[in-house]
């Protein structure tokens, strides 16, 4: 027996142990999303090979479309982890693209992004305070907020798109790149790394998970559950507004409906990624992988020649399947 095979022999029980531990912690499911991403990629690479799925420009396009979904999904991960949900995110994204466009014109690119994100965080604060202090479930508060914010966005520029002419803003938040890497991709990675760090390495991240898993237990240990729930909803809205900045940067406009239809896509991405729809389990990396899956599906459905109506149906079916999987997991534990 050579040294190599002896080492391999020693490693195998290690792998077994690792698998056994994962299974015991019910954590194997969190890797399903990566397998799904590879599977869907391979599937489309084969069946859509004549439709240009594998071309560099199409892959780049998928990446660009995944970016705002992923940024929103990272924020939504924290809302769901806290056992809340934020249905206002698509509307916040749209409003924020308009706010960014407006502010960039008047005050420059830094203020453009900062004001947009601040407005988002403010909307999240209102969502959170109403949900927590008035004791209304967050899905109702944010559903109402979705309407309010959509209305404000439609009033803001009379349904017209607002062009952005600040080249620095467009380079940093949209069309630019560092070497061959699109700035949108860089922002996605930055948001993902920060989100992962916050969830796993910061006290706040662990408290969000605790409150989502068992609010009364977290409260009995002295955690300020109101503050955690409010800040979790602020995080999702702030992330959604940053996604609005990225959409505005990519398209060089702000418009009342940018990202408005992404709500279901984002929720599906997060849940496919292994985050529990009812709190207590969350994965930022999974949410990003889920976003790539959703972007690939969107792209593939278009390349297949499906009409918009059929795309909607397909996406609806996918989210129901993902949630069904999450519910089953919930009942098992």
């Amino acid at each position, binding site marked *: 027996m050579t040294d190599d095979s002896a080492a391999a022999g020693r490693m195998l029980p290690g792998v077994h142990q690792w698998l056994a*531990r994962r299974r*015991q*912690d*019910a954590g194997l499911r969190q890797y399903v999303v990566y397998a799904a991403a590879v599977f869907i990629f391979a599937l489309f690479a084969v069946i859509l090979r004549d439709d240009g799925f594998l071309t560099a420009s199409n892959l780049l396009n998928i990446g660009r479309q995944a970016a705002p979904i992923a940024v929103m999904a990272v924020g939504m991960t924290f809302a769901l982890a806290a056992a809340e949900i934020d249905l206002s995110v698509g509307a916040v994204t749209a409003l924020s693209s308009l706010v960014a466009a407006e502010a960039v014109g008047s005050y420059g690119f830094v203020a453009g992004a900062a004001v947009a994100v601040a407005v988002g965080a403010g909307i999240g604060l209102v969502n959170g305070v109403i949900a927590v202090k008035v004791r209304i479930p967050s899905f109702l508060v944010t559903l109402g907020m979705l309407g309010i914010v959509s209305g404000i966005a439609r009033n803001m520029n009379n349904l017209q798109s607002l062009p952005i002419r600040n080249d620095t803003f467009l380079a940093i938040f949209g069309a630019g790149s560092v070497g061959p890497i699109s700035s949108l991709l860089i922002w996605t990675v930055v948001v993902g790394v920060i989100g992962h760090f916050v969830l796993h*390495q*910061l*006290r*706040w991240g*662990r*408290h969000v*998970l*605790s409150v989502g*898993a*068992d609010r*009364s*237990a*977290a*409260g*009995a*240990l*002295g*955690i*300020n559950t109101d503050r955690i729930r409010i800040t979790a909803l602020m995080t999702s809205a702030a992330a959604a507004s940053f996604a609005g900045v990225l959409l505005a940067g990519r398209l060089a406009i702000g418009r009342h409906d940018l990202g408005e239809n992404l709500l279901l896509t984002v929720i599906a991405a997060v849940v496919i990624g292994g985050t529990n729809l009812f709190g*207590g*389990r969350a994965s930022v990396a999974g949410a990003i992988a889920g976003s790539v899956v959703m972007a690939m599906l969107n792209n593939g459905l278009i390349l297949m020649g499906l009409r918009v109506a059929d795309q909607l149906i397909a996406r609806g079916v996918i989210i129901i399947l993902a949630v069904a999987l999450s519910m089953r997991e919930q009942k098992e*534990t």
Partner: protein
Amino acid sequence: MTGAAGTPALEVEGLCKSFRAVRALDHVALSLHYGRVTALLGDNGAGKSTLVKCISGVYAPDAGVVKVDGTVQAVASPEAARSLGIETVHQTLAVIDPLDVVENLFLNREHTRGGRFGAWLGVLDKKRMRAESGEILGRLDIRIPSLRRSMSALSGGQRQAVAIGRAAAWGQQIVLLDEPAAALGVEQAARVLDLIRSLRDAGVAVLLITHNMDRVTEVCDRAVVLRQGRKTAEVDVGEVTKDDLVAYITGARTGGPDT
């Protein structure tokens, strides 16, 4: 730090708590002493858990005062109770399933790293917490297969041990245990009693809610009996029999040598 053994750690006077028309606690008085174990007895619905929740800041009492070391304190929240050195093991254990053992032991008492900025951000010092968790559990002779296991992968007894270990680790003065050995096997229940004894020997004032009269006579110094929200008896455990205790609980007898 605990005071001298036998001196009062926690005193409750005239505590009242109602839920709508139901008087859960009616002018209840109670005192816990350093280095002593006090049993809190009573039938289901007598108000035991409500009393514990009032002391640990989960419920706000309608009237009455809570004194710690002779000073009146407002225990307005669980956090306020914890910072006064009052730790509680609730019936539900209050462990967080998706977090691991270390995270549960240190929940809301986390160590941070990275100096002041790290503390402000709340950057967890996982290495230090893991090392200290090993010490805490070792000191209490609590055996957990892996500190990095999530709580949901542990057995009922192990979960209970972690909850008690957490209370013992942070409850430097006062530990309230709401049925800590319910639903445990014989051996595990015996270990919980050992834990209670080691807390007592360390000078901690312990309150123990239980339905098991054997445990009362084994570890408790005094027993307080609640019935329908009122204190009906307070006795030295050494001076009564188990049958006496049961008679107080069922209401067949009231009073007691000291009341």
